Structures are given as C-alpha cells and as structure tokens.
C-alpha cells in the first residue's frame, strides 16, 4: 500500500520534515544486536538506546559477559573486542536450540532458545534493465529442506568512482618540494552495506522458492553505474518468529507515511531481563549458517546516459608560483599538474583535496581483493 501515497501527492498533498514536540526521554535501553553465523566469525554488539533528538555515537556497553548456550547447557563464551563488540570464532555446534546470555555489571539478560537455521545456496543474483532504463538487482533461492522458507538478506555494494582531477604530483611535507606522484588517488572503491530490512517468505507458494526478490533499484544516471559495480549478497534462513519480528520492525520504521499505513507499535524482540522482568531489552537473537554470492555489473552492457547524477563539487584550479612552494598548505590542497615551457616547469596548478583525492569521499584507492 506504500504507493497509495502517490495519489495523495497527486491531490496536492505534501510531505514535510517534522520535529516532534518535547518527548519525555526514555531510560536508555540495552540493545543486543547480532546474529551468530556458525561458519564465520560473528560479532555481537551491545549498545544502549538514545533519545530521539540526541546526536552523536550511541553508548557502547563494555565489560559485559556474553555466552552462547545450548539447550543441554553447553556454553561458548564470546570474547570482548572493545567498543561494545563481542566476537565468537566459527563453531561446530549441535543441531539443537541455542540462546544468548548477557551479563552486565548487575543485570542478566537472556534470549529465547532459537533453532539453528542453515541457509540454502543463493541460486542467482541477477540484474535487469528496468522500463525507465535503470537497473534492478534481485536474488533468487530455493530449498528442499523445509516446506516454507523464511529468508533475510543483507548485501554490500562496491563501486568505482573518481575525483574531479587527476593529480600527477605530490607535495613532500618534509622537503617542502614537489615530486611525481606514484600512487593513484583519482580512482577509488566505495563500499556500503545495506541498511533496510530485506525479508521474504515462500508461505503462499507451492515450493520453498524465492524468485527475483528485489534488493537494489538504481536509476540510469546513478553514479554507482558509471565505472564499475559489484554486489555481495548474503542470505540467512530464519525461523518464522524472526521473520515476524523483522516484518514488524520494518512496518514500524520503514513502511510508514501512507494513508493506509499500519499503526506503529512497540517492538522489543526475543530478549528478557531476568533480574528485572519489567525492564525492556531490544534486539533479536538468531543463529545459523549463511550463504553468499557476488556479481559484477558490466557497465558496457548498460544504456549510457548523457550524464550521471554525481554530487556537485565546486572545483577550480589555482596557480602555485615556484616561490610559494615552501609555504604550500598540503593538508587542504593537492598539486594537480605543472605548467611551463618545454621541460621547465614554471608554475603548478593545484586544487582542493576534495577535488583531487577520491579518498576524501570515503572510499579506498586500494583495489579490493575480489575486484578482478
């Protein structure tokens, strides 16, 4: 029903940013965030909730003890890695139910016992050109293990982007002179993990099968499609209860703002505080194996747009006289090119580092291992 909002827009409706009135701050609530991935290293994060208008980092809970426990009482302790992260290396576990036990300085929190779910392999991650010449990436899977499959996906996208200028020179801060550049700071790889909830079930289908579940939709001018794009899709099989939890969470935080939106409600998860049953705990514990698949999109196969929707940066070149070289501010500017007659350079052109160093925008200029 999300699309119904369009008709509202058509009737001159409007959506505006809104800041709520003073809301009575709630007590910070413990958040247990994580999934135990049996065949790789798993991270469980402990944080606390923040007031709605609070900015800055969330509070990390350190010094807690976390153990994975199965129904027969065997335990696997997690190792604290600092800043609220606790890790567990890959484990051989018994095919029975497990739970997570968290002990802070004075309280104990436990999850429900949940069954281990093993994800079937991803059949395919495919991409199609949409009617408006954009790209839609979707995933498919199937399984014979159970009648109904509940799945959750996460993904990590990686794409190439460039800085406006190509810098040939580098300023040596110690020698206060200029050398030829040996590294490439023009081209970078940016990676980003999914933030939305992607879940699906085969509940209404005759087979445990998911066909072309859409994950990413990009318009034709999307800058991610300019030089090179890859996506790694990670798939989890989840129990029905976990599916319902994610679905509720999705409804309460993503699927809102239409005329027929469901009313949001308080969602907590499968943890309880055994020390104080009144206290709320947030988070959902699940355990199982995952499967993954990476694809690359061959940019050559895409219809080429006239231009890409690249964020605009005001880039211009300034001249650096040779006499000014010792006082050059290399923390803010980068030398682009030399100018002169014949082989003699008489001056340099420089620009801001946002225009010349692609790393400023957050990516890395080190080619990832998986990139061909």
């Amino acid at each position, binding site marked *: 029903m999300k699309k119904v909002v369009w008709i509202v827009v058509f009737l001159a409706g409007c959506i505006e940013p809104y800041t709520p009135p003073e809301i009575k701050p709630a007590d910070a609530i413990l958040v247990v965030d994580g999934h135990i991935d049996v065949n790789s290293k798993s991270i469980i994060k402990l944080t606390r909730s923040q007031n*709605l208008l609070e900015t800055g980092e969330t509070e990390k809970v350190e010094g807690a003890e976390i153990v994975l426990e199965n129904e027969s009482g065997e335990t696997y302790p997690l190792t604290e890695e600092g800043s609220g992260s606790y890790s567990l290396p890959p484990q051989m576990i018994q095919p029975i139910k497990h739970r997570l036990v968290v002990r802070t300085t004075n309280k104990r929190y436990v999850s429900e016992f949940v069954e281990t779910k093993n994800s079937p392999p991803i059949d395919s991650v495919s991409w199609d050109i949409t009617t408006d010449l954009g790209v839609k990436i979707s995933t498919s899977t199937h399984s014979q293990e159970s009648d109904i499959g509940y799945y959750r996906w996460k993904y990590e996208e990686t794409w190439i982007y460039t800085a406006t200028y190509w810098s040939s020179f580098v300023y040596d801060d110690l020698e206060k002179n200029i050398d030829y550049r040996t590294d490439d700071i023009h081209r970078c790889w940016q990676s980003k993990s999914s933030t939305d909830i992607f879940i699906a079930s085969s509940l209404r289908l005759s087979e445990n099968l998911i066909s072309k579940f859409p994950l990413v939709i990009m318009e034709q001018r999307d800058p991610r499609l300019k030089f090179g794009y890859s996506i790694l899709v990670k798939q989890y099989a989840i129990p029905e209860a976990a599916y319902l939890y994610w679905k509720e969470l999705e409804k309460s935080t993503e699927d809102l703002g239409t005329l027929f939106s469901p009313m949001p409600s308080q969602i907590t998860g499968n943890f309880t505080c055994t020390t104080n049953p009144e206290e709320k705990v947030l988070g959902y514990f699940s355990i199982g194996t995952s499967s993954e698949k990476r694809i690359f999109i061959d940019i050559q196969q895409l219809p080429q747009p006239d231009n890409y929707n690249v964020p605009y940066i005001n880039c211009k070149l300034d001249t650096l006289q040779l006499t000014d070289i010792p006082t050059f501010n290399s923390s803010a500017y980068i030398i682009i090119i030399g100018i002169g007659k014949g082989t003699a350079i008489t001056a340099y052109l420089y620009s801001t580092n946002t225009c010349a160093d692609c790393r400023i925008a957050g990516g890395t200029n080190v080619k990832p291992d998986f990139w061909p």
Partner: protein
Amino acid sequence: MKTTRIIFLSITLFCLPWTRCWSQVETQISGSFRNMTFLQFVEEIEQRSDYHFFFHPTWVDSLLVNINVSNKTMDETLDEVLRETDLKYTVTLNHKVYLTLRQPIVTQLPIDFFDTDITPDSTEKKANYVRIEESEKAKIEEIIVIGIKGANNKPTGSIAGYVRNIKSGEPVIGATIMIDEPLIGTATDPSGYYSILLPKGSQNLKIRSIGMKSTERNIILNGDGKLNIEMEEDVIPLKEIVVQSDRDEKVMGLKMGTEKLDLKTMKQMPLALGEVDIIKAVLTLPGVQTVGEGTTGFNVRGGATDQNLILFNEAIIYNPSHLFGFFSAFNPDLLKNVELYKSGIPAEFGGRISSVLDITTREGNKKKFSGSGGIGPITGRVALEGPIIKEKSSFLIGARSSYSDWILHKIPSTTLKNSEASFYDLNANINHEFNAKNHLHATGYLSQDRFKLKNDTSYNYSNKMAAIKWRHIFNNKFFSELGGNYSGYDYSIISDNNPVEAFNLSYRLQQTNVKADFNYLLNAKNTVNFGVSTILYKLSPGSLTPSANKSLIVSDQLQNEQANESAIYLGDQYEVNSRLSLYGGLRYSFFKSTGPRDVFIYEPGVTKDVTTIIDTAHYTSGQKISTTGGPEVRLSARYIIAENSSVKISFNRVRQYLQRLSNTTAISPTDIWKLSDAYIKPLLGDQFSIGYYQNAKALEFSAEVYYKQMKNFLDYKGGAELILNHHIETDIINASGKAYGAEFLLKKPSGKLNGWLSYTYSRSLLRTKGLLPSETINQGNYYPSNYDKPHAFNFIGNYKFNRRFSISANVTYSTGRPITLPLAKYDIDGTSRLFYSDRNQYRIPDYFRIDFGINIEGNHKIKKLAHGSWNISIYNLTGRNNAYSVYFTSENGIVKGYKLSVFAYAIPTITYNFKF
C-alpha cells in the same frame, strides 16, 4: 359589494357521483355586457337568473367584462369572460357558480375513492374529498371540512394523507404537521405519509419541512378523513441555506441527537473536489469526527468507523467511498436528504452501535420528464427522471463517473503516468402507486472502483445493492411496509508483475434482508410501531488464487461464513400530556452462525494460539455453530419547559454482529468484515444522553451531553495478520471503550445570513487487557482511541446577496488526533530503529481549515433550455498544511521525522451543474 359572497371553497358536495347533469336544465344567457366590472356583471346575471356566484372579491377587482352573447350557456359565457384570467369555474346542479384560482373544484371523486377510504370505525356513509391545488394563499385561506358532522360522537377524528411536492409529486419526508392548541404533532414517514388524531372542531394545521415553503391548512374536523397536502418548493434555491432542520421538531419532537441535511444545504457548502459529498457534509455536524482528510470513514460520538449503519434507501452500503475515500459513493443528483441518528436510536434500527446514517433518494418526478447533472474537475454525473404512468409511477436513474485517469496521466511523473484510477456508480429507482393504499418502490445501486499504479498491483472494489418495498395502508391509523433488500461488497487485488508470484486475492460479502414494519395509531396519545427483520449473511472472507500459468502461488481459501441475524421490535410513543412525551422501544435481536464450517477447538482457560488447538469441530450445512443475542432497550422522553424550549433524555442499547477488521487508522479498501462467531463476541453499545433545546427568534440552540460504553471492541495482537488468516481468533483481543462529551449547536436557519456554529467537547477511550502481556496495551489502562479529538469547532455560513448570487464559508478546527511517537532510537544491524511510546500518547498538530464557496445561479427565465448554475469553491483557503499523520522512518540508517498532509494547498474547483 352587496352581491359579493366570500365563498368557502370546501363546500361539501353531497350529490355524488357528479355528472354534467346540470346541462339538461340549462339557462341561456343573452345580452351585451360592456365595460362592466365583474361584480356588476355578476349582479346582472344573478338578477336575471337563479344562478348564484361564489368567489373572492380580490380575485376579480381588476377584471372588466366586455362581451356580447346571445343564447349562450353559462359555461360558454364564463369561458369568454374568464378567458384571460387564472380563474376557473364550476357550475353545480343547483345553479351555483364557484370561482377558484387556477384549479377547478373537482366535482367527481377518483374511481377508487370508495375502495380506499374505509376506516374500521367508520360509521359515516361517505367521507369527504377535497382536492386542494390552488395557490398557496388560497389554500391557506380556505377552510376544509373533513368528515361528516355528527357521524359519531367520539371527541377526536383522524386525518391521514400524503404530503407531496406540488411540482414533482414526490413525497416530502419528515414534514411536520402540527396544531398549537393543544400541542399535537406528527411527521411524515419516508413515503410522505402521515396520520394524526386531533380533537374535533376547527383546527389550524401547520405544515413545515426542510426546503419547502411552510404552509397551513384550516380544517373543520367532524370525523375521520383524508387530507393530502401539496407543498411548494422553496423556489429560489439560493434563498437560504436550509438548515431549518424542522425547527419545531427540534424542540417539540421526541427525537434527539439527530441531524438532518438536505441536498440544498449540502450544495451550498464549499466543495472539496467539485462535488457535493454527503460524508463531508455530515462531518460538519457536532459529534462527528474523522481521522483525516481523504478518508470516508467517520466516527460518531467516539465510535469506530464500522459502527455506523449507512443505509441507502434502507439497504446497507458497506464501503461508502470512492477513490480511497476522496469521494463519497452517492451521486448527489439523486439525493433527497440525509438523517444522522447519534443517540436515541429508535427500535426499528439495529445492527450498528454508534449511529444510523439514513440516506434517501428522491422518487422521481411523477409529472414531467426532467434531468440534472454536473461537470466537475474529476467527475461528471447525470440524472434523469420522469413519469412512467403520469401521476402514478416514476423513474429516477443516475450515473456518475470519474475521468481522473486523464488527470493522473497529465502529471509529469513516471510513477503516475502508468497509473490508473477510476470509478463509477449507477442508480435506478422506480416508484409505482397502484392506488392510494398501495405503493411499490424499487432501488438498484452499483458502484465500482479500480486503482492501479505503475503497471503493478491493481485494486478493485464494488458495492451492489437492490431493494424493493411495498407500502400498504390498511386505514388511516394502520399501515405497513414490507421490504426485501440485498447488499453486496467485494474486492479483489490482482498482481501480475512477477509471473512466479502473480495472484488474485478476493473477498466477498453478501447480505439478504427481509423485513416488515407496521405503524399503528392506537389513540390520540399512543402511536405504536412494530416489526420483524431477518438478515442472511454469506461471506467469502478471502481467497487467493494464482493469476498466471507460471505462478507458484498456492490457492488458499478461507472457509465461508454464514449467519442469520433476526430482530423483532415494538415501540410506543406516548403523549402523556401537552408537555411530556415518552418513547419506549424494545428490540430483541438474535444471531446464529451456521455451518458448513470447521471450527478449531482451543484448550480452555489459556490464550488461544495455534499451539493450543486441541480439536476441530465439523459443522454441516445449516447446522448451528453458535448463537447470541439479547434485548436492546430504547427509551426517550421530552418535556416542554416553555413555548420554545424543551429538555430530552434518552437511553439506547444496540448489538452489533459484524465488525470490520482493520489495523490501519483509516478505512482501507482491503479491510474485511467479520461476523461474530463462537469466538468473536458481538459488540455491545450503551448510550445515555440528555439535551436542552431552545428556539429564540431567528435562532435555534441545542446542547446535548452523552455517555457511552462499548464492550467487545476488536483489537489485535502485535503482528497480527488479518488477511487470509485461518484462525483470526488467535490474533484478536477484546477491548472495551467509553466515550463522553458535550455538543453545542447554534443555528440561524434563515435570512440573508444563515448557517450554524457548533462546539463539541468529547473523549473516546479504549482499554485492552488480555491474559498475556502481549495482549495488553498500555498496561491495561484506558488510552485515547485513534479518533479522540477533544475539542472541535465548526462554522458554516452562507450569505445571499441576491437570488442568483451567494457566498458560503466553512471553518473547522479540531484537536489533532492521537498518535504513537518514538521515544528512543537504537542501532540494529547498522541501522537506526525506533522504540515507540505507549499507544496514542501524543497528538499530531491541531487541525484548522477554511473553505470558501461562491454559488451563481443562472437566470430565472421560465422558458429556457436548461437551468445552469456554477459553483466555485476554494478548499483549504489558507493553504494550511494540516497533518494527516506524523511518522518517523529510517532512511539510509538515519531516523527522520515527517508530516504528511493530504490537501496541503488551497484547492480551487469549479463545477457546472444543470437542470432541465
């Protein structure tokens, strides 16, 4: 003027049946009458012959006679004399000449007259028949003799008849007929019929109705008889905004908590999307709320949107909206009036606990063919009506359709370019009057909506209705109505975007109703009505089927539901004395759900859950699954304090066996109706209210206070799936509710400036307390319902500059509706998520809107092709961004708050309406 005799037009005519026998003893007239006044002419004739003239002198004071006749009959002479005038004449056997304005006296009775006028206690040999169709003034001045003097020695006589529109012959519904001394009154029923018992003697009857000119009749009541009254329409439509909601009825009548609107009133309100909308008009009344704009569901006195009995010509309409609620489902050209009962619901109504919205269409013009229609920015509509057999039967048909697809496609957005949205509705009414005692009325209605976005999922929904009613009058004091109707609602959702998951989800509800209502005027003090009704429900609550060959969707179908709801009622209105009047009604309703059906049996004493199912009971076709029911008491009283003021008090209990399952704030087209069954208890509502009413000069004032309790309200567990749920009882929690409030209304029904002003204070609270924490909301405390808006203010004003030009304005203010806001945010999986407060602890910003409208009538020439009028409206004049909802959403991992407004700008519309 010695020869002038002021006549009584209502001379009793004893020589019956009347023929033109007088011609055999004809006197011939010869002579020259030059430049004489009519009076002189009459004197002349009277001297020369044994003719006697009876007329009103003012009718003839300017009439000059200038004729030359030889051996002419009286007829021929009068034809010539009166040729250029409105005057008609009747010459009787005994040579009396009666002059009347426009209509001759009918000297013959209708053929069926004697068949139809037998009253059980009638001792008179003949009754008297007087036909009144003269000008208004004449009708008021004349004295009508009803019954034969001395025929019986009872102190009272009954009068009954129809009140009709003089122009179209259609019944006037809800017209009040009353006398002042002693104060006795009645109102016409939906077919315009009334009957009243009055003391014998000379009486002045006052007849009033919305949209009609008030009139009077002077009668001398000698015994039982008939009196049909024709009322003139308020000819200039813009004369006033007709909120004259039965001025006297409001104070003197027994009804309370009722509001009546007629089409004329609604037409003069500023329009939202170029069309008169019943529901939007009803929303301007005190005690009626909505969760937001663009939703057709409305909340009456703290009740939910599914608790309103929406009757369209007495049959239920399940989805009263088009285009997701932006239009109401009723073609305004066919409407007559709308009556909303908020409290004091009489015993003949049942099945919904909060209100009754009784929508009546016109009957169709019985005298001539005519049509009307309109063209607005989104819709076009037309209605045609006319006689089938003149004066006996008529038809009225209407059609309306959107052309909004075109508008969607004009918008430069790819999403909308590929979208389609359309609706239409059709109506047909037929009326037939077999004779004065038997009427037949049939109605059919069909509406269809379609909505499809971006070549994706399409939504279709449809209302169907057919009703037939036979009205039979046994005698002046006793009449009946037998009726049958069918209502259906269905929807389907079709998605074929992904061939593997292509599906068709459909839902269907059908109900068939048979009923009989009787009304008996027991004596001057008691009017009794009673009746029976039975409804057969058949629901197909959901079926999912694959809609493409490749589709892997597994067909799934919920079991059909069948049930029977029956009721029997008896009500008595008792006039204790001229001040105190009482109404007592008892309705006994009975509900039975029947097989074929398999019902899960749950472990007793624990929460119902899939894991607590212990058995499945199988019921065969027609086998009883569960029964419920009980008495519903309806009481009200009126006490007249002074001439123009009264107090009223009422109590009513209603049971509701059908509820809508919905966990969205507004009515959504995919909401499903669910019957009560072994696990879902019927909704029970009790309301107690007190009101004070006063008329002072041009103003009417009323104040009402109410308290309401609701039991077995449906609420849902978190994450409940309402569609295709085979065990919905495991996801339902019973809630209870209470509502209370005070409503104040000040009306100025007539004058150049007219309109109303209302203020309402109301609260609507719910409580959900289950066995488990997951079944308890807000720790089991009362919390505000979604439509709890404590303060509401409404102003509707109309100012008439002249007969063709008027302006109107509407001002609405209400407290923002309650919402659940996030209290905190937290990170899960790298994304910010929200932790919400207890339910409905905060409110969206207050609502405020001004609308403005201009009505321009076409010229008032009598002869022209069509009468056109223009309506120019600006909805939300100030362009205020009233919040429909406030929501928070996680975008790229960051929580952002938004406010959604539906009509965020001033919306101008222009509509052309025509009539021919």
